[in-house]
């Protein structure tokens, strides 16, 4: 049972208060996009072994969506941040680099 810090409430939130939302930082493709782009957007997901970025909602709390950077192997949480960003914060990327040198996740790292 994970504990994540809700970046809005600032409190350590138990997993029972959270709703998982899958991969973070997806770029939406709508009408006019190619079949490949749309397939990539809607279905193709990272299956990271190690550093991963994902969406969570503090559903039984403030109701806000946020992002978490987490290691899928050890469940170490590197940090959480608001969902209203198109890339992970630079400080967080540096923190992850210190702990997991050479990490890479999609176009980040």
């Amino acid at each position, binding site marked *: 049972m994970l504990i994540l810090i809700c970046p809005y409430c600032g409190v350590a939130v138990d997993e029972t208060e959270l709703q998982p939302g899958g991969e973070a930082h997806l770029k939406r493709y*709508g009408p006019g996009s190619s079949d490949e782009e*749309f397939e990539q957007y*809607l279905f193709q997901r990272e299956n990271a072994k190690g550093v991963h970025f994902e969406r969570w909602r503090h559903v039984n709390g403030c*109701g806000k969506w946020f992002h978490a950077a987490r290691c899928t192997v*050890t*469940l170490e949480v590197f940090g959480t941040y608001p969902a209203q960003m198109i890339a992970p914060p630079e400080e967080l990327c540096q923190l992850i680099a210190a702990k997991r040198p050479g990490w890479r996740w999609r176009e980040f790292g």
Partner: protein
Amino acid sequence: MSKRLASGGRRIDRSLPLDFTFNGKPMRGFAGDTLASALMANGQKIVGRSFKYHRPRGLVASGAEEPNALMNLGTGRRFEPNQRATTQELYDGLVARSQNHWPSLEFDVGALNSLVSRFLPAGFYYKMFLWPRAFWKHVYEPFIRQSAGLGQAPAARDADTYEHFNVSVDVLVIGGGIAGIMAAQAASASGADVLLIEQSAHWGGRAPVDGAEVEGQPAEAWVENALTELSARENVRVRTRTMGAGIYDHGYVLAYERLTDHEPDPQGPRHRLWKIRARQVIAATGAIERPLSFAGNDLPGVMLASAVRDYLVDYGVSPGARSVIVTNNDDGYRTALALHAAGQTVKAIIDPRMKATGALPEAARAVGLRIETGTAIAKVKGVAKVDGVFLCAQSGDGDKTEEIACDVVAMSGGWSPVVHLWSHCGGKLRWDDARAMFCPYPDRAPTGADGLPFVRAAGTATGALATADVLTSAVEAARAATEALGLTAPAQDVPTSAPTEEEPILPVWVMPGGAGHKLRSKMWLDFQNDVKVSDVQLAAQEGYQSVEHTKRYTTLGMATDQGKTSNINGLAVLSQSLGIDIPEVGTTTFRPPYTPISMGAIGGEARGALFQPIRQTPIHAWHEDNGAHWEPVGHWRRPYAFPRDGESVHDAVMREVTNTRDTVGLLDASTLGKIIVKGPDAGQFLDMMYTNMMSTLPLGRCRYGLMCTENGFLTDDGVVARLDETTWLCHTTTGGADRIHGHMEEWLQTEWWDWRVHTVNVTEQYAQIGVVGPDARNVLETLGGMDLSADALPFMQWAEGKIGDFDARVFRISFSGELSYEVAVPAAQGLAFWEALIRAGQPFGIAPYGTEALHIMRAEKGFIMIGDETDGTVIPQDLGLNWAISKKKDDYLGKRAQARSHMTDPDRWKLVGLETLDGSVLPDGAYAVDEGLNGNGQRNTQGRVTSTYHSPTLGRGIAMGLVRRGPDRLGEELEFTNVEGARIRARIVSPVFFDPEGEKQNV
């Protein structure tokens, strides 16, 4: 024969006798006894039968690891099977019955399995039941049904209550032996908030039994002082009868407290499940002694050496008159010395090591005990009990050299640290060759959210066996834990203890080393599941290499004891058979709980009315008073119909439909979702959420809207009303309110976070009542108030005002095809408004109707229902709803997906009406068959029924369904199948069966 000795027994109180029964036979024990020690004191040798061969089984252990002594405990509403006699404290009036035998414990028909045991080898179930097929029904299944399952399922509802308890601590110490106590002392000295739990009713673990000394005093006295001191500290909580059941991610721990299992007349909750968040965990979980594998080691009377010592020292019970000790390590000599000190006869100590010269063997020699080194037990003599042992050389193949008569064999194959809790959350193990045990590997500890270790082992759980090492590891674990918390503890000296010099263990996995197949097929590894050395060797021969596969194939360690005494021996035998080292074989996965916990504890308070709280509309009580037949819809209860005296539910539904169509009906629609969407960008936002254009909806108007997922599939529908320039009210389905509100928030927060929109779910703020039928307007006008005429409030518009004294928002929308007003009033006025309508409607013949009448009326009109016509694979275009999909918009959720080739395929199954030729009602979900067979040899299909009812309005069955190219095939006949396989013919028609022009709703 086992018996109570005249003196001794540190846990029992001889002044407090307790009466109990075993298989109906009255017996007597003392306060402080376990059921196991009391049975032994009463001379009860056989306590159960094994699972596969129904072999007679005696007590092997004295604690949680006991594989054999499983009991049916209690009676009636307090009956429970599979309780371990060794962990059940005795109380006055306890009723115990042995299990897994028929007709009696002493004579059991199933034991015949034992005679055919060579036909029941490892993997028997996989090998035998394949063929011939008829044997399954007539031979195998009755056989398995007769023999399967341990104990009996309780027949009556549990009389007890259970509870959950949430707690957060700095340091959780699991295990109340001297290591756990030491660790709790050291950790709490830093000021950390400490919880110390112990699974049994007693503190101190093995140390007092084994004669350890701490700080110059007997362990028992040290423990008592330490507990007194600990209990006085404000930052320390201690609990006995509380087992650490499992350690999970990020410091989550479950503990299982047995509050009243030892009480004759239990009051209050029986078990408490502790849900602990611990920042640091110290696992001081001790160690379990291993059996030795020699022929006949499963006979009642063969016990773990440590257990023999426990029964003797803790309960003053001698397991037999004459004992033989067999041990490959020095610790086993403690049992010989304890028996000797208690005046019991020790016939011999059998030690496979070539020499035994440590302090303990020398002490045994000094008191004149016979020690045979380099020696093994060739075979235990006896049927259903131990009569003696045959000796042989450990290095040989079992040639008997001597027979010794005895009735107890105390065996010690060395100790295995209890690494279960360490391992639950990813802690790794390391094989210690010198001590022949898997130990926690401190460099690979379970790590928490910060990536740092949060579990530390202490005491014998680390593999430490000497008292000094045990205490040192505990102090060290406490120091590491407090440092991890950022606290500083005062320097802690390790208490002094008497030194113990022990010589190395000789790992012995098969005794004697060269035993042939005949002996190996009598060497038990798993006593409960009847897995023998020969079974594991057969599995290896048949190609099993993974320990996990071997476990499942042989069932080794899969019994209720989860292999606590058998796993290490089993994997050692496997490694020998495969010719590889033990660490290469590895262990099976340790999974929580450590020992079984009750289902009641897991459920806690969540049962009966608290299992899933029911949502009630403001009018719920009226429905209940008026005989509603309930239907669960999401977490709500809605009236399905209101049957009158003597009326069937079906007849009530028919009456409600007819009454509503002829005069006027009343529907409690309060459960419908209501979401306010407000803001400068709300129109733009709703244009993305709905397939329709909502931004252009004029003030005062209503529009039926469709919502799709990004994958294109229809997910919800409902009427949207424009409240003011920047505000819309979105109605959702009853089950969809929370989901759709979440869906809106997700898109707003994660995709269009710069749009100025606010959403609020106001579902429960309003009671909403449908006044439906030709007399609807007349009823409302009787109450007086706002103008509800066709001119003032036309179809698909809404208005706000007063009806009678009620604050009302009135929507002229219809889900029935009738003249219909849906009136929302503040929730607090809901019941009064409903009652006012019932009174006002009396002259018109008003009657409430339920969800089934609602369904029939909407089906008569061809209106779709989310969840009936949709199932997550249906797009609006399949349902003839193209009119509700805006052609002017560039984008909406699902638009791109709906452009994919298979979504625009003309062969898609589409919505039509279906009319049986004979007027009967089609079965729900029935398929329309097509020519030919599919790849699985099944008939091809070309459509299916999605909604089907008897229509009282039309006097016949009506249905809606999805049919390939359906709308192009009006008038064609299809064949549907029912579950019996019969064919029903139906014609494809328009889905609108009633009032196709919509004249009735638009008056």
